[in-house]
């Protein structure tokens, strides 16, 4: 929205500048590694090897990426409606609660073929419900969605601790976890599915939810760019007043957008609870909701970009774990640091480089003859 950028060609605006921003984030990360006395290039080598070098690494990378696709899509959908949903963490948490409750209730009665869609539904409904209250308050009572979703993250956290410590805990144990789900409540792992086709793969937490995540990407793309509702959504995002003038019921669009966003975030619960942990437990969201913001910013709010950014962050998480294991002075939180830097450079400082790139571009193109009428 900043002036001065519109005269740049598209490839610079959506290609060069985002890449430049990420490079700056990685450069600063490298300086931090240097500052604590390690070799950044060696660190990168360890991370790449850890993330893609062998089967377990790839499996873990894709498992993390699954979570990031969901939270990244969640932030993107809200963003297209002009809303900033930073409640992905809480919505994912409550989505997981929904999955857990359904499975704990029905895993002795129903087969996985029915429980899987039920789990998807529960994750979506619970996640959406947790986003619906801030959405309603934003649309109808004028309270800012950013503040209310922050508050709802904390409320979700308190609620889950209460439920797991006092209600859902498996009797006779100390750690606040529910009982383990029966096999009918567990989604198949990818290595199990590959084994059905005779393909051997190392056991990793990667599970069928990854495929659901990719389906969601296509769904979100179709919804936002190929449907009437998506058109309304984007219109509201561009200008609420114009949308209202065009007869769009903006308040309803805001609530629907936030509910879809919350539902998508809720699918993290599907991946974690039904796919990997097979029990309900505390803090399984582990900051994935916040990573979604970095993913969405980096992926420019487009499903394809979100998948790419999720892969990068999946690799960072997995490679970062490997790095922390190999180099004792570097801890896993380096990944959190990098995440913060990515949000800073591709989000808050996204337009920092625009003025001087414009200057360089002008200097380079100044010699050429400009066709009449196309002058800026």
């Amino acid at each position, binding site marked *: 929205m900043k002036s001065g950028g519109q005269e740049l060609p598209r490839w610079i605006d959506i290609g060069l500048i985002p890449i430049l921003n990420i490079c700056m984030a990685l450069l600063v990360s490298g300086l931090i590694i240097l500052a604590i006395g390690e070799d950044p290039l060696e660190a990168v080598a360890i991370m790449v090897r850890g993330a893609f070098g062998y089967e377990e690494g790839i499996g873990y990378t894709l498992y993390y990426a699954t979570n990031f696709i969901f939270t990244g899509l969640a932030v993107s959908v809200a963003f297209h409606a002009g809303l900033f949903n930073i409640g992905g963490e809480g919505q994912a948490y409550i989505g997981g609660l929904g999955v857990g409750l359904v499975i704990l209730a029905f895993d002795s009665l129903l087969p996985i073929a029915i429980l899987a869609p039920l789990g998807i539904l529960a994750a979506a409904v619970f996640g959406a419900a947790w986003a619906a209250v801030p959405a309603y308050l934003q649309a109808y*009572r004028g309270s800012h969605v950013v*503040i*209310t979703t922050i508050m709802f993250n904390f409320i979700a956290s308190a609620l889950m601790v209460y439920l797991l410590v006092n209600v859902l805990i498996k009797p006779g144990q100390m750690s606040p976890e529910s009982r383990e789900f029966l096999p009918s409540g567990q989604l198949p792992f990818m290595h199990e599915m590959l084994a059905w086709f005779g393909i051997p793969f190392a056991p990793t937490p990667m599970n069928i939810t990854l495929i659901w995540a990719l389906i969601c990407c296509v769904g979100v793309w179709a919804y936002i760019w190929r449907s009437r509702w998506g058109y309304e959504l984007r219109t509201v995002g561009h200008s609420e007043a114009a949308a209202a003038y065009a007869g769009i019921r903006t308040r309803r669009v805001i609530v629907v957008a936030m509910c879809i966003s919350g539902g998508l975030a809720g699918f993290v619960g599907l991946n974690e609870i039904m796919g990997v942990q097979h029990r309900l437990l505390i803090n399984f969201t582990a900051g994935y909701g916040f990573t979604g913001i970095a993913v969405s910013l980096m992926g420019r709010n487009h499903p394809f970009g979100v998948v790419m950014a999720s892969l990068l962050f999946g690799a960072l998480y997995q490679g970062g774990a490997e790095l922390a294991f190999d180099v004792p002075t570097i801890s896993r939180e380096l990944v959190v640091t990098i995440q913060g830097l990515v949000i800073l450079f591709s989000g808050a400082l996204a337009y920092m480089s625009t003025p001087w790139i414009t200057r360089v571009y002008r200097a380079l193109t100044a010699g050429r003859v400009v066709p009449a009428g196309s002058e800026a």
Partner: protein
Amino acid sequence: MEDAFVFAILTVNATVRVATPLILCAMAGLFSERSGVIDISLEGKMLSAAFIAGSVAAITGSAWLGLAGGIATAMCLALLHGYACITHNGNQVVSGLAINILASGLTVVLGIAWFHRGGDTPSLEATARFMPITLPVARAVADVPLIGTLYSRLVSGHNLLVYVAFLAVPLVWWVVYRTRFGLRLRAVGENPKAVDTAGISVTWLRYRAVMICGVLTGIAGTYLSIAHNAGFAREMTAGQGYIALAALIFGKWRPGPAFGACLMFGLLDAIAIRLQGVHVPGIGEVPVQFIQALPYVLTVVLLAGFIGKAVAPKAIGVPYVKDT
């Protein structure tokens, strides 16, 4: 009766200790938000300041150098926030979030690299901390019934930064409502164009606001690691920056009410700690999580307009772009 009195004094003292960083952060946020810059990065600034203050105090053995380090750190982050939001018109929420995440990661990364204690800093000697101060004549009047007891046990015996926090409130009120700077600050948060038209720099005004915010969050962080505790522990702010933000909103962006909200949230926390596992007659065991979530619930209810109306500064969150 005697027991109830002692219990009350203990609870009030606990409230004061918990509320101190909240008050400092809420006052910090007040400057930033009143100038039109949303600041959700109180948490991150406080955490970074706590870490650097703890590190500096551990290495140099001086609480004052720790304080200086804490303030300098928070100030750097505040300037970063200003650089992104004021100079480059970046999204203020995104910038704040970036600072929070950056602080949460970097404090642990550096802590482990420097001290090898899993992200904590070494625990501090009394000389490297701000220790409780006994106010003048507190000992002498301790035996005077009521007033003497209250003075010696409630007013006296806190560390320096607690007094700083409580004195900051009237000072902030005075600056915001009784000085030229305060008038301009409030104006720039409501209508920056009018301020600009009057020939006053919106940019410089907002930068000053975020810098004051940096100083106050720096003191808050320092309080946590080298006054209230004897060293930094990873993630030690534990959401208090967000509670302070909630208190600021709850107090409708005004110093007095925000101060009251901080005390109330502090009291809730003090009660929650005391009620842990206690069986209250007639109610049963009160879930601690419920009390801990109460500040957030109350703030949402307030924002929803069910108990009064919280109206934010009009220009909050909107970068000021000069017409050319």
